[in-house]
């Protein structure tokens, strides 16, 4: 699947209500090639409004989305974009104002539809009076997991998330990272077919984050569909197959991580050892040399321009060691998309766009 700007949802354009023919057309577009019955998650024309007194806040505005089985999907967005609301609607925690939501083909508000669905909420709080083990047992029982299975599974999961030997401690004694890892163990209790993770590495140190990532990769290998909602773009980039960017309650960009992070025509040209070329000499029609620091980073209008550059370097008897397409970090794409949306809306209500920094991440 290639990345796409979701057309009729662009900022600044007039938008129909979620269930309007316009949005149904968008849904048809988004679902093109996707079997929504077979999809793990299918969202069509989803709208959600909250009322605060007389004020109405539109958290989701005609969202269309489909996530295939076994896929690892990342939902990105600035604070207040509607990410958590979308996850809550997908889990039946909040009722949609309009549109339709199907999780494994069923309405998630029905209790039976939530069988074998794991959820790690953002800022979750296990009851402080429980020990880690008792918390897992309680939520395992509520999920309908048999006692025998829990006896076997709880120690395994505690070990998996690095809490072996700490299961008997009260939750009140857990650090934030430990609580987060216990939450992940809780989400994995009934061997979920779909796993929803809302800021899974929030407050976790780099070592713990690595452990969580390893657990997710192992979970994915078992064929579990994973839906991640996160600010940490580097984490998303490493883990997800496909992402969607949510802005002001609308999906504004969607695609595979590879497609989104491959810019149109940006290349790195590395010359042979000890060789260099003056960037100003190489710039020409349809060719901009972005950087000459060690190797050349060039932006070309088309492939012909790239080949002209190669010809010029060869004419100067320079040896070319490598020509490779440059990939942008997902964070760059994210900021570019949001800035584009702000420009299109004609108001930059974000100020300078920033994302939460990831101290342990980055490519």
């Amino acid at each position, binding site marked *: 699947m290639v990345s796409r700007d979701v057309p009729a949802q662009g900022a600044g354009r007039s938008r129909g209500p979620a269930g309007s023919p316009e949005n149904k057309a968008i849904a048809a577009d988004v679902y093109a090639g996707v079997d929504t019955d077979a999809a793990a998650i299918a969202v069509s024309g989803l709208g959600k409004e*909250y009322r605060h007194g007389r004020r109405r806040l539109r958290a989701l505005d005609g969202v269309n989305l489909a996530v295939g089985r076994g896929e690892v999907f990342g939902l990105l967005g600035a604070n207040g974009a509607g990410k958590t609301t979308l996850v809550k609607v997908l889990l039946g*925690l909040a009722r949609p104002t309009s549109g339709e939501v199907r999780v494994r083909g069923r309405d998630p508000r029905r209790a039976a539809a939530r069988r074998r669905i794991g959820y790690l909420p953002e800022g979750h709080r296990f*009851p402080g*009076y429980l020990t880690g083990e008792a918390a897992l047992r309680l939520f395992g029982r*509520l999920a309908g997991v048999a006692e025998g299975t829990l006896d076997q599974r709880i120690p395994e999961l505690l070990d998996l998330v690095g809490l072996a030997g700490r299961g008997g401690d009260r939750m009140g004694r857990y650090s934030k990272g430990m609580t987060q890892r216990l939450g992940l163990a809780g989400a994995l209790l009934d061997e979920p077919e779909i796993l929803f993770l809302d800021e899974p590495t929030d407050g976790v140190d780099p070592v713990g984050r690595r452990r969580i990532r390893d657990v997710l990769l192992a979970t994915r290998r078992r064929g579990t569909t994973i839906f991640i909602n996160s600010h940490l773009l580097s984490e998303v980039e490493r883990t997800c197959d496909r992402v969607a960017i949510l802005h002001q309650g609308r999906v504004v960009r969607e695609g595979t991580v590879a497609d989104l992070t491959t810019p149109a025509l940006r290349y790195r040209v590395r010359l042979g050892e000890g060789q260099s070329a003056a960037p100003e000499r190489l710039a020409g029609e349809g060719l901009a040399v972005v950087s000459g620091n060690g190797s050349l980073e060039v932006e070309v209008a088309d492939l012909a321009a790239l080949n002209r550059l190669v010809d010029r370097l060869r004419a100067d008897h320079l040896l070319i060691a490598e020509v490779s397409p440059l990939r942008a970090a997902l964070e760059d794409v994210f900021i570019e998309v949001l800035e584009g949306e702000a420009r299109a809306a004609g108001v930059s209500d974000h100020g300078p766009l920033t994302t939460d920094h990831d101290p342990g991440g980055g490519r």
Partner: protein
Amino acid sequence: MKTWALIVDTWREALARYTLLGFLAVSSLFLLVLTFALNLDIVDGALAAGTLFGKAFEVPGKGPAIATVVATGQSVFAAMLYVLGVFLAVFATGSQVPNLQHRGTVDLYVTRPISRTHLLLGRFLGAVTLVTANLLFLCGGVFVIISAKTHVWNPRFLVAIAPILLVFLSFLGFMYLIGVATSSTPLSIMLPYALYLLSVPLAAHDRIAAAMDSRLGAGAVQVLYWILPKTAEIGRDLTGYVLGKTTPAALPLATTAAFGAVCLGAAVVAFNRKNF
């Protein structure tokens, strides 16, 4: 198993928050004071007054005098336990729903494959078992202490646990509604106490309504009387029943139960409709 898990969770929470221990401590203190009080000379003297040459003194038409003395004492205790038991039970369970609805906690419960109705009623059942056990300890303890001392076993005193429990259940339904609507523990505790107190003047609803100038005001008093729990009347009937004078009237019990059931039903509907 899900229901059992919710009941166990309720007990664990009560234990961890010291509400269960607090309830037991106050009850134990009450029983201890009663035990010491019954060993006072004045009590022994009163009991001796009911016997003649070691045999129970009979009051014509009323049975043994000692039984009347004991029943009177028990009716006083029943009235005290009616107030104390309900107040303690409300205090012990008032935080249940607000705690469940804590942001970050409710998500963990509600996203499990269990209906919200089942979740709320499971917690309700947990509270009922908790309070029933405590009331049995408190009232049963008083019954055993008084009966062992006097050798008069008046089963009516034990039956009095049922109306106490019924009034508590009615308040619990109300607390669940307040808890779901506001997520506030103080409100969940204060409002049932307010209803309890309000029922005292409302017991004289006919006289109050007759004394009012406004027909609207009089109507409002009558409506309030019929809607709200009739704790004052149930308390009065309770003491009369323990004394062996009356049988509790069905109407106050039925309307009090109906109030609780409607509140609980409304709490379930609101909980099901709520966005978390």
